[in-house]
């Protein structure tokens, strides 16, 4: 295992050394190319003369605050993001090399995102490159609006933006068991880092379990008697967005538990084949493992800190 670790590290470093040398040709969507394509800078007044509405809108938003040295308006105003407007102002009905983030003919995703990444590469954006949204050609403007209040930045409307692509998740939020997603009390960004993450499924924490413990800290343990699949991965038993079964379980109990447990002793004691017989509910060996909370009528699934909790019974 140590050799695999070493080989992996070595591979990454070798690639790191070799790949810069493999840069064979310039990309037309590099920042330098985009700036060069626009011509000379013309200044914000020129932009405002033709686009007063957009100008008036953005100065009410965070990107339009010139007093903040980090913003576009502390630099080249509109042209910080859209590129120099020199060619644009002299060519009718042509973008003239400007980067357009919306409208009928938006610029390629790479060009749009290059402009945003000029400033936004730190913090939550560090893992953006090769994240799922990056590789699937999602542009920043698919989710964010700069000139108007952005729906993605408001908890009550954030999911609408995500549902534009993730329609299956919207349907799952209406299933009989779900998190409080459709009520707007749990939003996508409570669990997911849309700009990329270091964990699986673009989750904000390092692992799926750590993500769940953010709200379900009582399940974190460590317990005296662990239930190993619980310790390893909550999603082995639970779905996250919606389920046909209570508590977001993947299957109906006791079949859920019987995926791993057929515990039977040679003398016939222990768990037996479980089925439901409404005609004979007094068959306590079986029926009490089926109805109500089935296995959880007696067992605690998430682990036990009781010295006698070996069988997760208390």
């Amino acid at each position, binding site marked *: 295992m140590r050799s695999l670790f070493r080989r992996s590290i070595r591979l990454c470093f070798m690639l790191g050394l070799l790949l810069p040398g493999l840069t064979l040709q310039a990309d037309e969507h590099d920042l330098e190319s985009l700036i060069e394509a626009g011509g000379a800078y013309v200044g914000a007044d020129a932009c405002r003369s033709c686009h007063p509405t957009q100008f008036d809108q953005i100065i009410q938003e965070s990107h339009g605050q010139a007093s903040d040295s980090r913003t576009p308006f502390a630099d080249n105003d509109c042209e910080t993001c859209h590129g120099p407007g020199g060619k644009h102002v002299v060519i009718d009905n042509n973008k003239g090399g400007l980067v357009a983030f919306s409208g009928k003919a938006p610029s390629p995703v790479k060009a749009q995102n290059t402009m945003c990444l000029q400033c936004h590469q730190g913090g939550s954006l560090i893992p953006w490159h090769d994240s799922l949204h990056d590789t699937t050609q999602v542009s920043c403007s698919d989710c964010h609006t700069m000139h108007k209040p952005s729906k993605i930045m408001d908890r009550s409307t954030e999911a609408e933006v995500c549902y534009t692509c993730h329609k299956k998740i919207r349907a799952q939020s209406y299933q009989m068991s779900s998190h409080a997603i459709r009520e707007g009390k749990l939003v996508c960004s409570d669990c997911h880092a849309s700009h990329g993450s270091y964990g699986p499924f673009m989750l904000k924490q390092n692992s799926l379990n750590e993500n769940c413990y953010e709200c379900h800290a009582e399940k974190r343990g460590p317990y005296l008697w662990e239930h190993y699949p619980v310790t390893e991965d909550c999603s082995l038993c639970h779905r996250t967005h919606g389920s*046909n079964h209570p508590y977001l379980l993947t299957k109906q109990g006791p079949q859920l538990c019987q995926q791993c447990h057929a515990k039977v002793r040679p003398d016939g004691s222990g768990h037996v084949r479980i089925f439901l017989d409404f005609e004979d509910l007094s068959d306590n060996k079986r029926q*009490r493992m089926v109805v109500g909370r089935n296995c959880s009528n007696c067992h605690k699934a998430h682990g036990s800190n*009781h010295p006698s909790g070996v069988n997760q019974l208390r």
Partner: protein
Amino acid sequence: MINLRTTRMAGLMLTMGMVSCSLAAEETIEKAKVVEAEPSVNEVEVGLRYLSDDAYRFGRFNGMTDEGPYFIGDVRAKEYSDNGDFWRLRGTNLGLDSQYLMFQAGTQGAHSITLEYDQLPDYENDTGATPFPGAGNTTLLLPAGYVPETAEFDINYPKDFTSKLPVDLDRFLLPFDQETERKRLKLGGKFFLKSRWELDGSIQQETKRGTDWIGASMGPAEEESVMLKTTGALLPEPIDYETNKMHAALRYHGKKTQWDFNYRGSLFSNKNDSLTWQDPFDLDRTGRLALEPDNQMHQLSAAVGHTLSATNRLTGLLSVSRLTQDDAFLPYNTSTTVDDLPRSSLDGEVWLYKGQMKLTSRPTPKLRLSAKYDYDERDNKTPTSTYSYYVADGISGEIIPNKAWPKENDPLSFKRHQLDLSANYRFNSRMGLRGGYKYRQMNRDSIDQERETTREQTLSVKWSMRMLDELELDLYAEETRRSGSTYQTRRDENLAMRTFYLADVNRTMLGTSVYFMPTDRLSLGLTGEYLDDDYTDSALGLTEAQQYSLLLDASYQISERISSHAFYTHEAFKSTNAGAQDKTLTTPDWQAELEDTIDSAGLGFNFNQFLAKWDLGADLIYTRSRGKIDMNNNTTAITSQDSIAVLDDPTVQFPDLKTSLTSLQLWTRYRYSDTISYRFSYWYEDYSSEDWTVDNLEEDSVDHLLLLGEDRLDYTQHVVGLSVNVQF
């Protein structure tokens, strides 16, 4: 309740006041201008909605469970000054149990503070009942006059079980609501230091209080035939949690290099350490459960991103976390003391380590390469001891320890290595190909773990085409193989059983998505996916599983003022479980075919200015799900178990699980002026379900088990609302 009424009354008065103001304003405005339907920067909305019926499930997460009026309160406001000073205010569901309020202020680019308050109800069921007075307490004693019945001798259970629940149990039943409520208060601050440095911090307190259910078992008195001698009871569990979180981050936003240093802390505290209850089947027996223990988590992490060149970037993360838990142990049972234990508390300690390095490169504009290595480790340093445990609390104080199997705790540690390589080549503007390889190895360090090492290899490919300007097509596939070290079946488990997440598996995933946009106004989408898991070495347990999904969606901009959308999704989950009643059987004597299907459809539209000052919108959702379990018995393999005749009866099957939900929301907005509008809304929702695990079962329907006797929570709800929106 007083607060709710007060809130409702305040809402009514405020609404009336706003309506009066707006009527007065009407006289001063000759012609109200129609404005575009753009979101306003600042707005307040207040009003009332009225619910036609009591419906606990309808209000599960929004807090509106009872018939009657509820306040509508929503605020969104912000303001910037020329020097960058700003404040923001956001509030939703104000006045409800699900209210949220956020206030932020500061100077952009210098500093800011944020204060957030959030409430989240979880009203699960209000139809349950329990004979225990004082649900929510940590000691549950049965009331005076409660006397279990003496049962007739049963040949199946000859050694004990001579008592049952009282025949007049109904007389003692008290309502029990399964409901909890979270309240969260968060204070955060950001400080932008010179030279691209940023300091970010927050503290948060969250409480969760209420009552939930917990399963509790009693017995046995002897060390044999455990299952035959236990009783079970669903009890009210008191919930009184508090979780305090701290977060501090120091970030550097360089042009080429970015750093992100973080500390996160989470301190969980449970005010209740145990739940003691009197056995409803035998008043002489008392049992005690351990509730969730206090615990802590502290994490330090450092992330870095470095742009090597215009086309190459390196990112990495190092993280270390420490998890601890040291709640005092309870005694083995209600008849012993903590002096009998090998230690007084667990002194549980787990260290989590994570390292990640990722290199992405575009050696040419058409080619993108990525290599990522992940390392995760759970190092469980929890001390081990041998516990002479009692399976459960027993009968009349005659406790016999489970001498046969004194057990040493076996903390789980593991290490996970994962390598991801991917290449993405874009042939031209119309075609791209992505391929990937993933290797994942996990080593588990635990005596009881069935498999020490598992290895997974995955190959994936995705072909993207723009066949026409209006038509895009993606085809993708993934193939995974998992194998590992020698499988060792758990003690007392059938030798042929394979725990599915450790078992050998061949996984195939196929998918396609089509996106068609024949005009600027119309877009159509189709996505289909198929996933197949074949557990190649599993005779018992989960042997195979399939998932199917189909998604159709359409959006149509009928005109500048009318937009519409529709979708349909179908999901199916199929799997096969196999089991054996005899430990010596290596072939299954029963199989269960499980199938869950969920169909959902939605339709909606927005019509701006359908009349001069009126907007209109509608949203309809329908969801239907079915859950089937078909039992198949292999009679030739069945041994001398009882009830065989019933098992072999093909008519004895699990009923289907059924749920359906129809939700229709209609609204119209009247733009009274540039700044004032009225919103009328109607919301219809119908939910129905059939769940055989609770339907038609009373508290005493099953022998030796005390249930909660809940009813299904079907409802039909009509909600009408009227609100006024003021923009400023």
